[in-house]
């Protein structure tokens, strides 16, 4: 006999499908479950329905589990998820301490939190890779940007954005024993957010993201430099190309003075790659902006690819690229241009340009030493780290973002390689801001299928760091940057276009101030991140 409360779920003396599912989901009370079970045991029709319901439950579970399948070439996000967890936990703890300061009687052991927070801050920066994407919405600001905003708010526009401005209270080390307030207190019912709520939320986010005022954390340059040193010491080494590697590969005639001007002014400093690399302290100060070119270069077909339009079923419009449609010169690397530079970098570049190729190693050391001296003079600090440590790229990107005043992201990056050994074929690799990867090979009018892949979060972070460290200020300030390496015939052998989205800013191409060697290295690293070789195998 069904319970009176269940009567509406019984139809003609039989439980309806919803009730059976509720029973199978073990959501009925003991009494109700007994009633249903007894009935099912005696009713063949209901027994069949139960069997069908079990099958549907299992099938839906299996189908939904298929959504969890990880695509090929995707790094499991567990590591990143751990870092994200630490981000939120540290922010939570920071907020907790902030609340404690305003209501001291509510939270005991604040000093304990501080001590634990110092340790956790160092651990946190060792774990967090630095998440970069900002979706142009002031509500959805990732943790790294929140931290940057917090530091910028506390220290002004010249403050350093590091990975650990938010002092963590190390909940991962010592879980608090406090409990969530019991039910009865008013809580806000979940409602759809509106514009007002978003603004308030964004405001509260920025407030809550501000770091606690630790005794050693102040706005004094010396104290900040000390924090920078700790942050730098705690950050993991990046195996990717750094400024050091870039300098090492330079030819004397093509010192990227734009890079030097930016780096020397204090965005980031690495040292010579001749084995005596040291980790220089993070530099505070405003980076020297790279002046914009007077006239941007013409938009080429790669822009269309960079915008992600027409990639599927690419038509003949891009077929022309196989013939070298872009403008170019007859001399390799002549299409690379340099921006105006600072006097110091100019002097170095001039000296470098006058020496022979055989002296490139010593020139690199000179450049790096000069950069380091300039950086040291800017901060009055001259600490160095162990010889084998190099300033990680994440720090460069973070500081670059802080100096630019906003988080940097890219719309898309496109690599176009043209091979005219037999018939000219252009292989185009495009990655958009969401990490969607497209690859197409075109030769004349025939187009081969586009292959799709998806970068993991970690790969996207790596890619962003790679682009940031290579193009420095150019991308931050410009709409996009286009770099072309021409073959001996004058056709572009390799073209890299990085399109940058700036809110409400017109997109103009910045000149490429990067050497051919660095560009080739960049292309190789992008291939490695994206897994271009596996994409090639998919294309018949």
């Amino acid at each position, binding site marked *: 006999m069904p319970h009176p409360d269940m009567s509406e779920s019984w139809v003609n003396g039989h439980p309806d499908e919803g009730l059976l599912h509720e029973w199978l989901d073990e959501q009925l009370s003991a009494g109700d479950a007994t009633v249903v079970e007894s009935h099912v045991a005696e009713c063949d029709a209901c027994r069949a329905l139960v069997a069908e319901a079990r099958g549907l439950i299992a099938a839906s579970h299996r189908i939904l589990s298929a*959504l969890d399948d990880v695509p090929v070439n995707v790094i499991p996000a567990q590591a990143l998820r751990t870092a994200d967890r630490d981000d939120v936990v540290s922010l939570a703890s920071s907020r907790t301490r902030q609340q404690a300061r305003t209501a001291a009687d509510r939270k005991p052991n604040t000093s304990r939190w501080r001590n634990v927070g110092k340790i956790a801050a160092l651990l946190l920066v060792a774990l967090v890779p630095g998440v970069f994407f900002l979706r142009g919405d002031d509500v959805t600001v990732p943790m790294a940007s929140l931290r940057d905003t917090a530091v910028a708010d506390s220290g002004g526009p010249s403050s350093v954005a590091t990975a650990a401005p938010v002092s963590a209270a190390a909940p991962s080390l010592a879980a608090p024993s406090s409990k969530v307030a019991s039910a009865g207190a008013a809580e806000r019912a979940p409602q759809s957010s509106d514009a007002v709520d978003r603004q308030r939320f964004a405001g509260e986010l920025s407030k809550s993201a501000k770091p606690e005022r630790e005794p050693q954390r102040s706005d004094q340059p010396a104290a900040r430099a000390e924090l920078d040193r700790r942050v730098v010491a705690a950050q993991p080494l990046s195996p990717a190309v750094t400024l050091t590697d870039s300098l090492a590969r330079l030819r004397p005639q093509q010192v990227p003075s734009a890079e030097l001007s930016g780096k020397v002014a204090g965005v980031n400093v690495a040292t010579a790659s001749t084995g005596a690399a040291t980790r220089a302290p993070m530099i505070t100060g405003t980076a020297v902006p790279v002046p914009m070119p007077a006239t941007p270069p013409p938009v080429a077909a790669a822009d269309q690819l960079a915008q992600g339009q027409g990639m599927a079923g690419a038509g003949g419009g891009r077929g022309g690229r196989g013939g070298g449609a872009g403008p170019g010169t007859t001399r390799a690397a002549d299409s690379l241009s340099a921006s105006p530079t600072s006097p110091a970098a100019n002097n170095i570049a001039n000296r470098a340009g006058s020496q022979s190729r055989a002296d490139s190693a010593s020139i690199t050391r000179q450049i790096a030493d000069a950069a380091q001296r300039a950086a040291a003079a800017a901060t009055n600090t001259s600490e160095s780290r162990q010889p084998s440590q190099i300033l990680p790229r994440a720090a460069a990107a973070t500081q670059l973002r802080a100096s630019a005043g906003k988080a940097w992201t890219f719309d898309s990056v496109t690599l176009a390689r043209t091979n005219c050994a037999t018939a000219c074929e252009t292989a185009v690799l495009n990655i958009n801001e969401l990490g969607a990867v497209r690859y197409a090979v075109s030769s004349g009018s025939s187009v081969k299928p586009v292959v799709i892949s998806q970068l993991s979060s970690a790969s996207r972070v790596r890619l962003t760091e790679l682009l940031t460290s290579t193009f420095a200020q150019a991308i931050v300030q410009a709409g996009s940057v286009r770099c072309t390496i021409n073959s001996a015939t004058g056709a572009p052998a390799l073209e890299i276009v990085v399109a940058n989205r700036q809110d409400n800013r017109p997109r103009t191409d910045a000149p490429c101030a990067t050497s051919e060697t660095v560009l080739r290295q960049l292309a190789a690293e992008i291939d490695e991140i994206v897994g271009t070789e596996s994409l090639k195998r998919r294309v018949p």
Partner: protein
Amino acid sequence: MEDVERLFRLYHAPLVRYLTRRLGDRDWAEEIAQETFLRALRQESISSERSWLFAVATNLVRDDARKQSRQRKHLELLRAEAEANDSVDPEPTSMERDEERALARQAVESLAERDRLALLMREEGLDYDEIAEALNITRSSVGTTLSRARRRLAEQFEALQRDKENHGHAAS
């Protein structure tokens, strides 16, 4: 909110999984999850934690999905993903996984919004009371909602598989 760490430890993974299944984009899901926990920070107390978290996350998805650029790009990825399934792939294992995932995605998207959400929440272990609270429906209707969703999902998936097989046979 003093115990956000505990909430994070308990609910972050299932929340991300729920959002990933809902959105088909793990990065997006993690962003929404982060924002959900940040909102939890602002709460003095939460009586029904899990349903509150899932409800807030659901609302955030709904609000976020209104942004045209996100939807357009998401659809573009879906379309591109579907096109990729038609491409020649020398790696049958990954191809089959991609196909199944694409079919599962289509089947899930074919459900009514409330049915889909209820099913995804149930998969993450929310009980009927929590689902009712999160979706603002009566508890007595949760069972019916789930049964309908499960049946529809299975039937749709089966139909999509059948269509794909027929299409493959016709092509050959």
